[in-house]
């Protein structure tokens, strides 16, 4: 039922006066509508509140600034390679419709859609961790995981003048190879999981629109005038088939930037999804609100960018 932030913070105390005092200090004794308007007023003046339990005393904007780079680091490689592989597979699948290759690719795609990502993550962790010695299953920032590093003991290192929040960039800036190795080792499996699971949508959409485009008259004309089959596919057909797919790619990118909830939980990766779940379990409502609004902002701007990109990819479309 309702998670009570005050009880969760103080633990179960015998003294109700302490709980009541804490409630009054937080302003939770006010009517709900008053609380809402106080929150909204603060929200629109740039004060998104202060985290109450999860990381006490830090403002929500500060927390988002810390965890968003981590999520970007996790998803940047999948964002780049998913469209490439997905479109390629979709084209191959459409070229050999109803043959063995097509069935195989569709089977792989459906397998990716159906696999529960957290189960895939757990099983990969088990098998890779069991058979490959340098891989360790565990959280980031554990000292025992990186025994070769001379300098790396904690992140961010207090001796650094500044840090960007991106672990890999910081590793390059301050020449900490242990940090880079540690981060990369922890990122490989989540990236594999995410790529495999997200391929299917783009592959299926590309295949469908390619099949539609290959029926058109101008494709027959191109073949009749003696174009190479490769050129027909890659120049005449693919450009037109990519229009519906581009929407999916940009939408998927925005959705991926909001954090992979289950992947981060399965790998103990402290990004947006991890903080979201932790905040929900503990009842840190200000933090939940902050992350949700940030998520919504990302998705909204993704939609906007998709609309603008539409006119660039397909010049026939114009918003008047």
């Amino acid at each position, binding site marked *: *039922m*309702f*998670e009570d932030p005050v009880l969760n913070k103080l633990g179960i105390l015998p003294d109700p006066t302490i709980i009541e005092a804490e409630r009054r200090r937080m302003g939770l004794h006010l009517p709900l509508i008053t609380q809402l308007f106080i929150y909204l007023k603060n929200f629109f003046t740039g004060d998104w509140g202060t985290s109450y339990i999860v990381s006490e005393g830090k403002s929500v904007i500060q927390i988002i600034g810390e965890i968003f780079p981590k999520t970007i680091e996790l998803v940047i490689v999948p964002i780049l390679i998913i469209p490439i592989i997905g479109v390629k597979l979709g084209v191959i699948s459409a070229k050999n*419709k109803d043959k063995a290759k097509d*069935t195989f690719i*569709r*089977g792989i795609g*459906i*397998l990716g*859609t*159906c*696999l*529960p*990502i*957290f*189960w*895939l993550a*757990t*099983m990969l*962790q*088990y098998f890779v*961790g*069991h058979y490959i010695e340098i891989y360790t*299953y565990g959280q980031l920032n554990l000292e025992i995981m990186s025994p070769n590093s001379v300098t790396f003991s904690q992140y961010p290192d207090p001796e650094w003048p500044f840090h960007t929040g991106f672990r890999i960039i910081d590793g390059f800036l301050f020449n900490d190879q242990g940090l880079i190795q540690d981060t990369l080792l922890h990122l490989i499996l989540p990236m594999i999981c995410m790529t495999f699971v997200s391929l299917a949508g783009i592959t299926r959409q590309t295949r*469908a629109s390619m*099949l*539609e485009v*290959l*029926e058109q008259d101008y494709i*027959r004309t191109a*073949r009749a005038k003696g174009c190479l*089959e490769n050129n027909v596919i890659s120049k005449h057909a693919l450009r037109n088939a990519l229009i519906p797919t581009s929407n999916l790619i940009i939408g998927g990118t925005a*959705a991926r930037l*909001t954090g992979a*909830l*289950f992947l981060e*939980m*399965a790998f103990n990766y402290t990004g947006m999804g991890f903080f*979201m*779940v932790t905040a*929900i*379990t503990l*009842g840190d409502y200000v933090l*939940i609100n902050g992350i*949700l609004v940030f*998520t*919504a902002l990302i*998705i*909204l701007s993704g939609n906007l960018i998709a609309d603008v990109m539409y006119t660039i990819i397909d010049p026939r479309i114009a918003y008047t």
Partner: protein
Amino acid sequence: MKQLSSKKIQSDIPITNMKRFRYLKFFLIPGWRDPAFTKLEYQIGKSKSKRKLFRRLIKPLTIIGFLLLLFVTFCAIFAPWLTKYTVKVLTDKGLSGGIPFDDPTSDHPLGTTQYAYDVLGRLIWGCRTALTFGIATIIIGASGGIIVGTISAYFGGRVDAVIMRIADLIMIFPALILLILFTQMVGEQLPIMLSLFGLLSIPAFARLMRSSVFQVKQNLYIEAAQTGGAKSFKVMFKHIIPNAIAPIIINFFGGVGAAILGFTSIAFLGFGDQSLPDWGTDINFARTKFSHYYAAFWPGLFILIAVMGFMLIGDGLRDALDPRLRVTTKKVI
């Protein structure tokens, strides 16, 4: 007379059986011709389109999906006979006396998981939970989406704008996070969860229905019905919905698969209904026990089977029914 009638009966039974067999052959084998059907040329021509649809439907992947779904449904229906453990033993922490995370024994063929629950028993009873959740959710979502989408597209204008903005507002937030938030507030019982998930999946179905109704609305028979004096309620539910419902049916099975996946994902995070055996909770129990990985392996395999069955059938239906994917001419090369 008596002799004649008995003769007729005798000759009748084998012929009908033969006919049925031949008809089946005619349906299943592409290009099969039968001399007995020459007189019925007209009816055959009529059923030819049906035969084409059927042949488009029986692709290898669809058959695999159907078999997987059959397996899960079998487990769900015959659960009390397949395992000797009851739901109470499998979900009550005190009742099952045994060792948690035990190796397979004769009592527990796949070992035990946390609180010494039997893995196989929870797998088999979990089929019921998953199927109930998936199908009920999508029935709520699809019926709500049909009604909302039809109303929105039929009236258009201001009504359409308001309904679609509300749908956009719901779709901006990730559905699973909203579901976790709401179940924390309202309660984690299965009926509450599935109705919440159904309500949250209404906007997607409403959009689908809306675009389909916009196409149907252009037809002449709608105008004829309106001119004939039909109330808008009757036009919507008698003339538009039966003609515009195809995309909802196509998306039904895929939606059920996605709902099962979402439900197990939430249960994996620990927000599931603890009073029912379900696969996501099993994986949550065993995911850090790397020495007993099979306690997490089998539930995941069952999720894969169930979701894959629904998704494969949904894909097959989409390929067979969606007119945009139908290839009309042969490839030139």
